[in-house]
């Protein structure tokens, strides 16, 4: 599967399902407006560029790990549901945080990493059912935990990202 095909498949599924559990006219209206805003963001400014870069990076890494044992050490292929969750997560990340480096984990989950400098790094892996495993090094402190990704970023993840970017440790 090419990166372009992956982008189409995952991107459309992701736009259609994000945060919307409602079927009412109002819910559809809200969803349409969100999609319009999202498209405008994509068209505009550097904000859209960096998001687009992340989307294409995700397609690229998913395409590169599209077979079992892609690392020669028995890794599982990139999990298609995890990729969809990763698209959803990318869209939810606050634009004030810089773009993460994306990669595929040996268990097929997708990892998002923000590396600032030695001992200043935070990483999240997202699995097929939205499970978020995170870990970070913040100077002499560290943190790790598991959360579930619903419609918005769980607070511990936001707190750790704020901690990383504001250097409050």
């Amino acid at each position, binding site marked *: 599967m090419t990166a372009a095909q992956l982008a189409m498949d995952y991107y459309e599924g992701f736009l259609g399902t994000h945060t919307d559990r409602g079927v009412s006219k109002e819910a559809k209206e809200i969803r349409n407006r969100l999609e319009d805003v999202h498209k405008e963001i994509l068209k505009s400014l550097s904000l859209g560029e960096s998001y687009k870069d992340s989307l294409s990076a995700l397609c690229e890494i998913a395409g590169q790990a599209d077979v079992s044992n892609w690392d020669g050490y028995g890794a599982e292929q990139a999990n298609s549901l995890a990729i969809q969750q990763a698209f959803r997560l990318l869209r939810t990340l606050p634009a004030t945080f810089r773009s993460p*480096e994306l990669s595929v984990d040996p268990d097929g989950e997708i990892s998002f*990493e923000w590396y600032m400098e030695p001992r200043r790094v935070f990483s999240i892996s997202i699995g097929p059912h939205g499970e978020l495993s995170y870990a970070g090094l913040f100077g002499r402190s560290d943190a790790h935990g598991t959360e579930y990704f619903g419609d918005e970023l769980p607070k511990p993840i936001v707190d750790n990202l704020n901690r990383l970017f504001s250097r409050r440790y």
Partner: protein
Amino acid sequence: MNFLNRLWTTLIGYFRAGISPKNSLGVLLSRFLTHKNQFSATRVKPNAFLPRDLKLSVFLTDGLAGDQIWILGEKYVKLNIYGRAEIAYVAVSEIGLKVELDNKPQRHANITGWPAQKSEQKLYALKLAEKSSLLLRSKQIEGSY
């Protein structure tokens, strides 16, 4: 008895790999990097150190010259090798993980002692990545000319 068996296997392993047990703390381990996912331009990414089935495959590369290490990797790792992450045995030990030398193939070892929870594995992987050095194969080849 199990302890004695493990000790004996370890000692035999070091002997076969040509490494003195008393110097094992200074031993260098290499994790061969077989995918662009596993490194960036300047550093090893933590996911290069995430285990499969609670084991992380490494080679003891102490005492080998750069070329010999690449040959070792080519011989036993069946994919294109982009580089390697080099880490000291002592760094692995300090983090709280173990190195079990099995010499299958020769100089091969597994980093073991991993927790079952993924977030904790990620934390260990972050620490291993911090302590490791990235050696890219292309740079070494360019440097040798």
